[in-house]
């Protein structure tokens, strides 16, 4: 009897705590969405609650005024490019570190993880000059290269830990057949670990989608600016109109949130793959 009560008390209290955390996480987003659907007078009287009357006009204005398509496309290009490069070049490196018995692997690993500790401001100004010399300044590809360099060390570190767990037998039979490293990588390793790759892709996508510091310094043509700078500009100039700013915020986050929700099951799988590190 006592046990049953204790168990249900425990279940109830754990759900209670989870619900509290749920509200903590979700409430601000709910407010953001509510506010994007309100009129300004509605907002003035009712800052955080649901809209008394739902308006979609803010979204129309937001779409037009913030040149959303242009900037979201830029962000998408940056994300796609960086993810592609990291998964290929980083995947290759991780594969090498995990399975190819790279001589000096420990040194390379140490080097990788040290790179994550470098603050970007140490090298941002010289990087600017260097990119200018190489003709990469004010170009999206130039920015993609920088994002790849910065995000790859951690990505490689994590990818390696995924790949290390794959049983060696799978490879060895292919090796006995004389298969090249490439075909082993593509035909055997990848199909097994692709959710791990997806997870890394998502984490990198989130980082690139939200980056603004470096983009700001490297890009000079406002047509090339990503969605983050577009949003900041909007928030500053239309600051008085929070309903409009909220609408811009909602469309700015919609792509990345959608991406996450679509892939979240795979993402969880991917994390599971790497769990034992």
């Amino acid at each position, binding site marked *: 009897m006592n046990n049953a009560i204790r168990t249900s008390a425990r279940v109830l209290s754990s759900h209670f705590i989870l619900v509290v955390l749920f509200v903590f996480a979700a409430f601000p987003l709910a407010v953001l969405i509510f506010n994007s659907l309100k009129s300004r007078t509605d907002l003035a009287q009712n800052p955080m609650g649901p809209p008394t009357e739902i308006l979609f006009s803010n979204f129309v204005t937001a779409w037009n005024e913030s*040149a959303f398509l242009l900037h979201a496309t830029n962000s998408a290009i940056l994300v796609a490019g960086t993810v592609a490069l990291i998964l290929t070049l980083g995947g290759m490196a991780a594969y090498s570190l995990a399975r190819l018995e790279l001589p000096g692997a420990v040194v390379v690993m140490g080097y990788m993880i040290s790179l994550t500790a470098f603050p970007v401001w140490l090298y941002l100004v010289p990087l600017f000059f260097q990119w200018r010399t190489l003709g990469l300044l004010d170009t999206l590809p130039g920015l993609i290269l920088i994002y790849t360099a910065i995000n790859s060390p951690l990505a490689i570190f994590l990818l390696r830990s995924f790949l290390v767990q794959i049983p060696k037998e799978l490879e060895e039979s292919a090796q006995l057949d004389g298969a090249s490293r490439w075909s082993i990588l593509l035909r055997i390793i990848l199909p097994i670990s692709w959710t791990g790759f997806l997870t890394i892709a998502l984490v990198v996508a989130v980082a690139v989608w939200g980056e603004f510091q470096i983009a700001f310094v490297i890009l000079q043509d406002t047509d090339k600016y990503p969605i983050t700078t577009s949003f900041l500009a909007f928030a500053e100039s239309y600051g008085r109109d929070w309903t409009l700013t909220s609408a811009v915020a909602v469309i700015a986050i919609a792509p990345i949130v959608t991406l996450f929700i679509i892939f979240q099951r795979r993402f969880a799988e991917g994390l599971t793959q790497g769990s034992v590190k």
Partner: protein
Amino acid sequence: MKASRISMVSMGLVFALAGCATTSASDTATESGGSGSSESAEGVVTMWIDDNMVNPCFADVVGGSWTDQEIGLQIELKPQWDSLTKTAVAAGAGPDIIMTPGVSYTAEFAKAGALVPLDEYSDLYGWGASFAPWSMAMGVSDGTLYSLQGELETMVLWYNKTVFEENGIAAPTSTAELNQVADQLSGLGIQPFASGNVDWQGVNEWLLSSVWSAQGGSDNVYAALNGSGSFTSPSIVEATAQLTEWMQTGYIGGGLDRYYTTPIDDYLVQLAQGEAAMNIEGSWRFENIDQFFTEAGSEWDWVSFPTADGEPLFSIGTGSSWALNANGANPDAAAAVLDHVFDAATQAALVVQCGMSPSPITLDMADLSSIDDRQSRLYAEVAAAAESGSYGYLTWSFWGPKSNTYLVQEIENVWAGTMSETEFLAGLDAIFLEELEAGDVPPLPLR
């Protein structure tokens, strides 16, 4: 310095306006919100300016009236244009026409050899005759003219006329009266001064510029600026202490915590709606103050910031500094554009159509007849004051860059109570004198 933001601003507006950027009658290309290369090229003069609310109008007016057939003008609005310009110039590129927030910045470019000397062009275009002598002096570095100063700025006391009239308060002219009025307003439950620096930390120096010249005494400030006096002179210390008291008692902004979190638009709404009654801000506010008051249905007006002795005084300075990039392909063309920018007709159009502050050039008041009386009254009074030599000094125009940064940042420590006024001002002295010796302080026009 105008209330342009530290980081990014109105890109949305830029793109909205890019759609209606006019190409003038000839084939010249005028773009706001640039696309394509900003590299200097023969036949096209490039200019990078701040991406704020008023500059799209600037681009329209200046670009739209540029009628040269052979030289194209490309005006690009860029967020953080100042640091972008600096790094670009340092890398051997950058726009043909360099615009900086103040003369101390262009002076730095000049010292690094990045600018084209302007003396010849000045003779050619007669700039010496049209610009106020005090502003010409500022653009000289090591005996050579390197920059022209734009956007005459002065600090005034804006106030909600409706609130004043309703409560029988007369606009104050002396410090004593100002304090009286502030106390009276506070007693009525009205915030004496609206303010907030979350958008722009430089609001700190709007306040300092006002109280130092008006209450500390412009002669004392002048002495400190040329090295013969000190910022620790008693009246300057007292003026700083007065400001601190207003900050700490909540007279300004309704409390330090509010001051640090209130955006400019919000406090202007407060001013217009009568929650606050006065505002210590510069003449750039003519740009949009009407909007706020029309929305709230009340009246505004201004007086010169009250002085210790009650005599009117204007602290003046300039909001922008213009120079020619030595990396540019065609300095002659760029100089022609520069002349066009500072042409009396262009400047008048900028005032009338964009609400911008005019540059310190001789303007035909007839051109300005369509603007608000209160605004033309200001320009007339400032011009008279400048000529008679009785004016004060805006910190962003007459201090060196390091001392300027120091005073903006460190005053917050005084307000927090962790630093005394004397310590703060002594520190300022030290840094300023270093800069003065190194030649980093803009030339001071003689009184």
